[in-house]
């Protein structure tokens, strides 16, 4: 089985290197095909591992070699395929294979075609390192690797010029890429501190050893570990207050948004919390804080999605909101529920993004949903796929989202956090509303695109074919709830909901009712001309539309003072002190060289004399320092 672990891990790397070899060349279709094929190989290997684990319940461990061995610190390149990582592997490789195939069509006219596939496969490799590593150091490498690939891919169209914030809220791809990278660095510092604390107190970074010894530690230490690791998770999973980068990350190509900023990378934070469950289950207070933050983000992000007009940003806020749901589950100790929602969310959110990609393609990269409408007639399959994804996202039976999301609400109710439950319940309604607001504005109603002179067309058949498996999974994945629970709780702690009978039915009914009313409101309002223009004048609309003015606040609060500080450091510190010191030293050396140049007369006789003087000095030294006999 070891070989399947290695194949699953390294096939994307091979693909990335292959495509990378053509990076500077004009488009070659072969790069897209080879990388997709290799990812498919990786997916098959992951599936084989999944079935092997299902059958034998035997965890597969591979140790490649020792990476760092100094003193008492030993960090091996070890990989593990256990119940959690195998679920992540299958999810990641499946979604990324489909996104790769889709990208062949999506990027077909892009001049960076080969480069794109190289980055995308490199991302998958990093993500697999992240989920498969058997120690925190390997996880951190993967963590940084996906951060790097995310930076490369958000800034993929780096040549686009900066625009003012009121024209394009994310300014430019390179700006957005840097924002994402820097915010993640801030969070990664937290994570690194967490790793240091773990190593300091336990003396190892290996999951097995850490989790076996963590309960022996002082509760304050465990709390510190949990808090700092969660700061890392907050950055990667874009939780408040480090959430602004995710919406701006939509500057990248849409397949990237689908794969990285919806399905896989942003869920790494959830994965980290799930993976570190022995730490978090010791500290329920922190868990409650995580859950509270998750619930807050779920509502907070959903509220921003309500009014946004940008197709991709709406879906990005929805991703944020769903990540909040996952953290609620993880924070309340229902780790398998979090993982389950992570998986189903990956399917339907990737589908939603790929659908959005089709729409963007059809509309020449126009993103304003108020310029669309009535696209159902020309893009039937895309529309159907996106409606399926939206239904799944809203949590309507029998779509995948119903099972996972409802479970999270049940967990919140069951653990008697009624306020959290209420927030999530409201969030569910908002989710349904904005999802169908989007559907209504894009696919139904008046054909506004004709006014703007667009000629939409359906995407390539293979792009649709790549979306089909996701659509299928968005429908059926929920029915695997019980085998899934049974499988992952071999590793993760079990969580039983104690609500039965009437109450459970009532809760499900209440949630479904909320979702349906959200859908109903959206359908009714937007089939009757939408809200009145007066609504746009209200303070609440402006607050939501401008993302609670948080990006502006960050700019005033952090970026500008930092800029001033940098200027002082440059003009005062660097130029006056550092540069002057260096120049002074250089001046001394230059002058002494100028003075000493005379020695180099080029005359052999004189040089010989210098040589003999040197010899004399050496002989004197020999006598002076010769050992006394």
């Amino acid at each position, binding site marked *: 089985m070891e070989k399947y672990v290695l194949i699953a891990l390294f096939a994307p790397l091979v693909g990335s290197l292959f495509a990378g070899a053509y990076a500077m060349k004009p488009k070659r279709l072969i790069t897209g095909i080879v990388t997709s094929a290799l990812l498919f190989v990786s997916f098959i290997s992951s599936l084989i591992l999944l079935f092997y684990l299902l059958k034998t319940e035997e965890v597969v461990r591979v140790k490649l070699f020792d990476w760092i061995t100094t003193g008492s610190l030993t960090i091996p390149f070890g990989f593990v395929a256990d119940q959690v990582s195998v679920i992540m592997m299958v999810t990641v490789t499946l979604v990324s294979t489909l996104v790769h195939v889709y990208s062949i069509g999506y990027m077909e006219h892009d001049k960076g075609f080969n480069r794109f596939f190289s980055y995308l496969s490199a991302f998958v490799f990093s993500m697999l390192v992240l989920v498969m590593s058997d120690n925190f150091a390997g996880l951190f490498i993967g963590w940084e690797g996906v951060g790097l690939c995310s930076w490369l891919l958000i800034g993929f169209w780096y040549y686009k010029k900066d625009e003012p914030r009121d024209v394009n809220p994310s300014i430019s791809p390179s700006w957005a890429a840097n924002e994402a990278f820097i915010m993640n660095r801030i969070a990664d510092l937290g994570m690194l501190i967490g790793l240091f604390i773990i190593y300091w107190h336990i003396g190892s970074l290996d999951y097995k050893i850490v989790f076996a010894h963590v309960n022996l530690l002082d509760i304050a230490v465990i709390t510190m570990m949990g808090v700092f690791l969660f700061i890392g998770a907050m950055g990667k999973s874009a939780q408040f207050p480090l959430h602004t980068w995710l919406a701006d990350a939509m500057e990248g190509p849409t397949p990237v948004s689908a794969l990285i900023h919806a399905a896989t990378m942003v869920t790494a934070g959830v994965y980290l919390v799930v993976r570190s469950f022995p730490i978090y289950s010791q500290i329920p207070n922190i868990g409650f804080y995580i859950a509270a933050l998750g619930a807050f983000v779920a509502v907070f992000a959903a509220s921003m999605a309500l009014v946004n007009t940008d197709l991709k940003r709406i879906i990005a806020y929805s991703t944020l909101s769903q990540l909040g749901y996952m953290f609620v589950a993880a924070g309340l100790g229902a780790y398998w529920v979090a993982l389950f929602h992570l998986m189903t969310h990956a399917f339907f959110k990737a589908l939603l993004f790929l659908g959005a990609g089709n729409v963007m393609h059809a509309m020449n990269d126009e993103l304003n949903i108020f310029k669309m409408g009535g696209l159902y007639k020309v893009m039937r399959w895309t529309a159907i796929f996106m409606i399926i994804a939206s239904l799944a996202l809203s949590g309507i039976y029998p779509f995948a989202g119903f099972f996972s999301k409802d479970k999270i609400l049940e967990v919140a109710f069951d653990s008697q956090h009624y306020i959290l439950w209420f927030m999530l319940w409201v969030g569910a309604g908002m989710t349904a509303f904005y999802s169908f607001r989007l559907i209504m504005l894009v696919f139904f109603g008046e054909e506004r695109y004709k006014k703007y002179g667009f000629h939409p067309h359906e995407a390539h058949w293979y792009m649709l074919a790549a979306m089909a498996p996701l659509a299928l999974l968005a429908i059926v994945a929920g029915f695997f709830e019980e085998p899934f629970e049974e499988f992952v709780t071999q590793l993760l702690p079990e969580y039983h909901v104690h609500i039965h009978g009437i109450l459970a039915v009532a809760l499900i009914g209440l949630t479904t009712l909320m979702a349906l009313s959200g859908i109903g409101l959206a359908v009714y309002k937007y089939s009757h001309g939408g809200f009145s223009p007066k609504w746009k004048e209200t303070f609440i609309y402006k607050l939501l539309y401008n993302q609670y003015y948080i990006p502006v606040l960050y700019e005033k609060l952090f970026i500008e003072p930092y800029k001033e500080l940098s200027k002082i450091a440059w003009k005062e510190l660097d130029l006056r002190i550092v540069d002057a010191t260096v120049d002074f030293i250089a001046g001394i050396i230059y002058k002494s060289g100028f003075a000493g140049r005379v020695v180099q007369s080029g005359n052999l*006789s004189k040089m010989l*004399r210098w040589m*003999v003087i040197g010899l004399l000095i050496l*002989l004197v030294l*020999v*006598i002076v320092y*010769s050992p006394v*006999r």
Partner: protein
Amino acid sequence: MFEVVAFYLFAALTIVMFVITVTSKNALYAMSSLAAGMIFISAFFFLLDADFLGVVQIIVYSGAVMALYAFAMMFMDTTKEVKENNPPKKIVFFLSGMIALLLVLILLTPIISDKVKALYPMSDEIGNTEAVGIVLFTKYLVPFEVAAIMLLVAMIAGIILASKRMDESITLKIDQEIEQKGAE
């Protein structure tokens, strides 16, 4: 007794010859005294039971090297004395004298001899030439071959350098061109 007499005699002769070599204004005299000094040095080798080395010394130095010098001097006008702008004598003699003094001082201190172990001890049973042959063609075979190749290379280099056409060599031309360009 014979050894003592021989040592001092040859030491005096060698030193005199070499002093003539380094001080003589005439290159021909210098070369002759150098050749004589070389032969006297071979006497030390015989005294030191290094017969083969002594023979090689006579053949190589007094034979080959001196012949080379003689031929080289034919290329040049050796009768014309090179006008030497000699450096101040004081510095030269001070430096050389100090080095001689220091070297002698260092050498006069007793050497801890029991720490030295002979790797290839000499034996009385076989002659020096035979012993040299055995060591040279076993332990020192590779350096020996390398030295042979080095001599070959040196020979080819000597032939090429001294051949007729070398006064208008490529390197020379480039040199002149550079000088011309510098002048421009």
